[in-house]
């Protein structure tokens, strides 16, 4: 039933986010897309556009963990439905695990849908891509986005929903700047792996960056669990 609750909490956000790739395909199909000039790689701009969208999706789908109240209620000393949730005979570990899993699965599905959209756009730019290549691209996006996703989950255990979303976006902005100006090592530069060097463009899998992102996600999730276990409501 916790899965059901997680689904009910996120379904409209997911539908809203799914609307984006549908809109993109329909819009580009209706206006027509010109092939890129000779010499420039096809679809090079798409990952740059898709990465911020994926990060927004992470922030929206990660949910507020055990908290469910909007920020304005918390400011009034109200607790939303959190107290009801915590009165159920379920451990906080399970509550957070299920909620985080629901959002992560939805994020994965959303990235899959985006990649299908991308696939449908390819003929319009006179490009071709093997199924394996699109799967590699989707895998890269999912594993790299997991770091952002679980950062949002962690923020959800500390902040109210509204501030969690802003916090996630600010963290992404900081990483974007760091990626642009600090010349981070490739193995930790998640933004670069998603935006400018995904397999779609670099034709190689960023394995170390993906592993770093997954490791970071695991650490962030463990921190979120630890906070959730001891937090007072």
């Amino acid at each position, binding site marked *: *039933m916790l899965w*059901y*609750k997680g689904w*009910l*909490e996120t379904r409209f956000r997911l539908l809203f986010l799914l609307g984006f790739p549908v809109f993109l395909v329909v819009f580009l199909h209706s206006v027509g897309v010109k092939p890129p000039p000779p010499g420039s790689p096809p679809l090079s701009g798409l990952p740059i556009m898709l990465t911020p969208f994926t990060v927004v999706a992470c922030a929206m789908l990660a949910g507020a963990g055990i908290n*469910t*109240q909007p920020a304005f209620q918390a400011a009034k000393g*109200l*607790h*939303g*439905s959190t*107290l*009801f949730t*915590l*009165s*159920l*005979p*379920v*451990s*906080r570990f399970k509550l957070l695990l299920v909620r985080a899993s629901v959002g992560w699965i939805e994020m994965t599905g959303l990235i899959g849908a985006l990649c299908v959209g991308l696939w449908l756009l390819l003929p319009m730019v006179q490009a071709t891509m093997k199924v394996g290549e699109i799967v590699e691209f989707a895998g890269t996006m999912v594993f790299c986005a997991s770091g952002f996703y679980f950062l949002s989950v962690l923020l959800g255990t500390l902040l109210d929903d509204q501030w969690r979303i802003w916090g996630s976006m600010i963290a992404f902005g900081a990483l974007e700047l760091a990626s642009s100006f600090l010349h981070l090592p490739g193995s930790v530069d998640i933004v670069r792996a998603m935006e400018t060097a995904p397999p779609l463009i670099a034709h190689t899998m960023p394995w170390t960056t993906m592993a770093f992102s997954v490791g970071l996600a695991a650490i962030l999730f463990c921190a979120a669990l630890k906070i959730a*276990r*001891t937090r*007072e*409501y």
Partner: protein
Amino acid sequence: MTDFIIETNGLTKSFKRQPALRGLDLRVPKGSIFGFLGRNGAGKTTTIKTLMGLLHPDSGSARVFGVPVADADRSIEIRQRIGFVTEDKELYPYMTVEQIVRFTQPFFPKWRDDLERRYVKMFELPPKRKIADLSKGMRSKLMLLLAISRGADLLILDEPTDGLDPAATEDVLRELVAIAASSGTTMFFSSHQLAEVELIADHIGIIDQGKMIVAGSLDDMKAQYQRLQVVFANGVELPARWVEGVEYVRREGRVVSILASRNVDAIVEQARSLPGTAVERFPVTLKEIFLEHVRNN
């Protein structure tokens, strides 16, 4: 098995160095209907949240069903046996009445379908309506339904009739008494409505400034507590020290009002020993006991 379903010893809790509980000792007997009274900010909700494992005490101990509430793993065991109505009556706004009932049911193996059906009908809860569209009174009713249908051994109710109209309040109170009588469920409830508490509670605890100032059986309390109205003759001075058991003395001219919690006969004797004194004894209400204790604490 302990005779007390809830037991706390020297419970303390502070928020930003502001003490909310100052060594709270609370004992709720098994099968009782325990009215937990106190002014705003006295520590009622902090106590309830501590019992539910939502807050961690700074010191002292709290046990529910003999299980320490601080034990995170075993707290699941406690919550499986508790029906809880929160102070703010907030539920998932995106669910319908029917959905939240179906959502809650599987967590509780002793779920009472008969009670669920009974209260859906009695409280006139529209199954298809979103919780976001329910009034506070309807949310209170729904929360009571969800708490009672759990088949719980203990109901912890934080202001359970808040938001209900008088008729619904009457229905709810009657049902709570019926449940306690038929299934032996212990009830621990906080309320500001002293008349309600007096109507259904058999045990009372009054908390003030984070400490239990009065606790015990309501019948015993009513038997022990009496108000004495003493009229003194002109020029007679009040005793400097009264017999033990005088909770407060209030003087208006020649008339002195005394609240006695014990040794009433001895206090009456002491008053009558003064020349030209007339003494009358009156029973007291819970409201009087409450008000005098919190005013004089």
